[in-house]
């Protein structure tokens, strides 16, 4: 039988297993290095690092990465603030929730790239419009997850709050927020992954500065080792971010069994 039989548990250290899965990637890079046949389109990885080093000394690489990071962090921060607060409001007013959900469905389904030209037309190119687009695009998982969690806060808990004579602020901070926290956390994780992609897309389409723009620019200048190098950095960043978020989520959710998640 090809499927594993349940009576055979595997005892592997989790750290080792993780690394083992990277073998295909390592093989790909090694093979690429050795067999490079098309130096214009597929330069060997060693040359990527040369180009990246050059970009670094030209003081191009780090500012670009920094710009992207700032855009991403600001966009995510705004999305968290708006998403959680709006989510709490909407979650506590079911009729408002229902009334706004078709509009929200439409807005959150808007593909991110099409937001860029319209926003630039209205707000111009710059950090402001980039941050706005990122925040607008990624607020939805946080908002919807928070709203859903708020909607499903058990009435027993709310009754306990009333019984203990909590005022509205105490109810909010001691009961509501801790209850919605796990679902909101899941939403933040989804939003963060989305945020990396969105930041990239915005920079690629709108020009300006940042890693996305740098990627396009390297390709336009036929600096393909530089392009692949920047791509590698972006890939590694996304991968590490995902891992970090997964760890945070696991640790945070350990004390919150059975948390709900939407979107």
């Amino acid at each position: 039988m090809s499927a594993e039989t349940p009576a055979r548990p595997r005892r592997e250290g989790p750290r080792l297993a993780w690394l083992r899965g990277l073998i295909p990637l390592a093989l790909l890079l090694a093979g690429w290095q050795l067999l490079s046949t098309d130096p214009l389109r597929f330069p060997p990885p060693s040359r990527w690092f040369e180009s990246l080093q050059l970009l670094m000394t030209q003081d191009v690489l780090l500012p670009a990465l920094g710009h992207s990071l700032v855009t991403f962090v600001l966009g995510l921060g705004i999305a968290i603030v708006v998403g959680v607060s709006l989510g709490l409001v909407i979650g506590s007013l079911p009729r408002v929730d229902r009334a706004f959900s078709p509009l929200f469905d439409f807005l959150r389904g808007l593909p991110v790239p099409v937001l860029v030209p319209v926003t630039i037309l209205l707000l111009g190119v710059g950090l402001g419009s980039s941050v706005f687009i990122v925040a607008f695009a990624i607020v939805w998982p946080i908002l919807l997850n928070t709203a859903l969690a708020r909607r499903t806060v058990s009435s027993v808990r709310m009754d306990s709050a009333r019984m203990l004579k909590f005022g509205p602020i105490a109810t909010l901070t001691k009961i509501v927020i801790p209850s919605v926290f796990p679902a909101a956390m899941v939403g933040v994780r989804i939003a963060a992954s989305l945020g990396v992609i969105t930041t990239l897309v915005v920079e690629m389409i709108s020009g300006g500065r940042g890693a996305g723009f740098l990627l396009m620019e390297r390709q336009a200048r036929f600096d393909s080792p530089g392009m692949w190098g920047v791509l590698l950095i972006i890939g590694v960043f996304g991968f590490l971010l995902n891992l970090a978020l997964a760890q945070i989520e696991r640790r945070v959710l350990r004390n919150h069994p059975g948390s709900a998640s939407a979107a």
Partner: protein
Amino acid sequence: MTTVTPEATAYAVDAVGVTLPSAAGKLEILKDISFTVGEGEIVGIVGRSGTGKTTLLRVLSGLLPATAGTLTAGQKPVAGVPDGVVTVFQDYGQALLPWRTVGRNVELGLEAAGVPRDERRDRADEALRMVHLDGKRNDYPWRLSGGMQQRVQIARALALEPRILLMDEPFGALDALTKASLQDELLQVQQRTGATILFITHDIDEAIYLSDRVFVISGSPGQLTFEIAPGLARPRNQLVTRAEPAFLAAREELTKALG
């Protein structure tokens, strides 16, 4: 042990043992199991939870290889699922394919055997008739009661005309009344087809009612510690047979053997 003439042996089990890897190293689940079962016999296997009865059935069905001893089914050594042996499981909900109708579920084994479509339909209909579900061929399993679903699984096995039918607590998930009617249905089926039946059950009364012989597996590792042939008259009857002195005596002995 009752002797059976070699040509009519369904199973010959000799010093079979099973050891499996586990979290704490190797675990011996079954040890030194030996018995023979004649064709057409009904054998019930009882024992406390965790004594390895299901493991024994999986070995007999070819799903799990024995790690010690030898095992033949119909004179041939068992390696993989033997010819003419079909197993029926306790969890009918998981064992039936929910996206197929009753009829197509019953035909599944026949499809695998490459039986042509018309013959498949006839054999499936015949099997459903044997378990009194002829009108249900186009229903989906989730529409049926638990008892009916189990009958569908049995029909699926019967459609293959097995020489040996293995059953793992077939009626364990059913209520008492359904259980009783299915027990009688099983006896009728066995009479018509002459199949050999080995089944696991927690219910001592059920074991005595249905079987020619009852085996007790106990201990850790599980061993065949006790065997009894109650010698009850056939055809069985739920009320009469269960009141026979031989029945009560067998129940007493088995209860003692189970400890």
